[in-house]
């Protein structure tokens, strides 16, 4: 059905707009301001236009960090989204199992991110960690501080462990919101379990899955604390993702200029890809533009 046309709906949106704009616009202006100036000291600023941007974009270490970031986020989406959906499908619909499942799923999400990193440092150490001990016991020489592959494996394990529950919880809520009548109709139509998933469940989860995909993309692209605590960006540069590199740049410089320019570019990349994801997800299945 068509939405109702009514500009007075803006009043409903006003509180949200005020709250968020208040927080967002001022910082944004500040960042843009810094990104186009060279600051030598208090009161000594020179407008340098796009110079910082050019410098930042030419940096080959930035390119490397960017590729690593895309690989990381890509893997995150490929693993967490299907896995989260599978878990939501497997979760019970009634009885005590529901509460038990929900609480268990929520646990990894509630741990502060620096603590997550610490837990996994410990967990993967052969001397004091269960995972490290088991893997070493199996004869595999695993050391995430020395070998890039091991570092990536550990990071992915940590990341999937930490965030898949978010996808699962969203998918589960989305599944529960489907009226029973659809399942009844599917039964009456003789649909198989796969057909029910493909034609009823998946389409009706589109809203929650869009949020899950966008959230996981954005948050994984911005990730900082967990990998920083776990590997510090190493060994070498092998796990230096974009935001870790940004902090290195910001700390290393005397000037806020390059960091501000970098932040804007960072933001624009995420904006672009989120927008692309969003457009793609809106048009999937309906055949009509929303």
């Amino acid at each position: 059905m068509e939405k109702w046309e009514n500009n007075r709906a803006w009043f409903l949106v006003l509180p949200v707009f005020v709250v968020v704009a208040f927080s967002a616009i001022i910082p944004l202006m500040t960042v843009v301001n810094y990104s186009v100036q060279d600051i030598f000291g208090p009161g000594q600023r020179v407008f340098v236009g796009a110079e910082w941007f050019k410098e930042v974009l030419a940096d080959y270490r930035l390119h490397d960090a960017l590729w690593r970031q895309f690989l990381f986020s890509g893997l995150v989406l490929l693993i967490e989204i299907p896995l989260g959906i599978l878990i939501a499908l497997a979760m019970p619909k009634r009885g005590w199992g529901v509460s038990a499942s929900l609480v268990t799923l929520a646990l990894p999400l509630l741990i502060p991110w620096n603590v997550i990193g610490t837990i996994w440092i410990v967990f993967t150490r052969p001397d004091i960690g269960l995972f490290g001990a088991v893997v070493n016991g199996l004869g595999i020489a695993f050391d995430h501080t020395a070998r890039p592959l091991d570092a990536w494996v550990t990071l992915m394990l940590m990341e999937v462990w930490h965030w898949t529950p978010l996808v699962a919880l969203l998918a589960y809520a989305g599944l529960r919101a489907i009226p029973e009548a659809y399942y009844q109709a599917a039964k009456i139509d003789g649909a198989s379990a796969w057909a029910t998933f493909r034609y009823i469940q998946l389409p009706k989860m589109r809203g929650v899955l869009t949020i899950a995909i966008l959230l996981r993309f954005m948050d994984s692209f911005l990730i900082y604390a967990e990998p920083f605590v776990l590997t510090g960006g190493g060994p070498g540069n092998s796990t230096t993702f974009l935001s870790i590199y940004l902090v290195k740049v910001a700390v290393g410089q005397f000037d806020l200029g390059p960091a501000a320019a970098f932040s804007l570019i960072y933001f624009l990349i995420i904006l672009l890809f989120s927008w692309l994801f969003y457009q793609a997800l809106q048009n999937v299945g309906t055949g009509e533009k929303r």
Partner: protein
Amino acid sequence: MTIQKRTIGLAIYFALLLLPIYWMLNMSLRTNADILGSFALYPHDPTLTNYIKIFTDESWYSGYINSIIYVTINTVISLFTALPAAYAFSRYRFIGDKHMFFWLLTNRMAPAAVFLLPFFQLYSTFGLIDTHIAVALAHCLFNVPLAVWILEGFMSGVPREIDETAYLDGYSFPRFFITVFLPLIRAGVGVTAFFCFMFSWVELLFARTLTVTNAKPIAATMTRTVSATGLDWGLLAAAGILTIVPGALVIWFVRNHLAKGFALGRV
């Protein structure tokens, strides 16, 4: 039997999920020396020293309480502002609606560090540094857009015919919203409340920057476990375990709304 396979798979997943947490629990019940000294699957000499230290140190448990306060404030503000807005996005077309909707999400796309200095200056100006409300408001930056997006998704799953039938029957908007609409989207409200709580609870940067002592959250206090001798594993583990509890309680209370789902009421 598909049902059996599904449950076994789920049970395995949950067991794996709980392993690192169990390990943390294990560590929290041992002293630092014990942890570094030997590898053990369970605490041979369980001790509550770590927990006692946390509960008796004022800066620890006040951090706990502070977090709960500003997270609750934030969840309430986020929900209350997001519900009408989400309804507007779901039901109405108005100037700039699509742009506004997407713009909300863009507030989660910038590295948080970008906002630190401006936020600090902003809240200083209003004299709100080291207050709970400052952190609660700062967290609205990323929680309110999330709340609007999630709620809009669930609201759009409710057919517009239900609204129309209610208005035809003479319901006023507030009455319709509270007695008819909200029960239909309770799964969404539950999820939203949980995520607002969760993202606010684990957020470090703003919480640390905008507070000094009065509103200092637990997550910030936990970084003090780094000492000259290295990380106090036992203490960190105990604090980590304790940070999980309030969130676990919240999702416990919300579980019925999540599970009940959509029941098509007769208007």
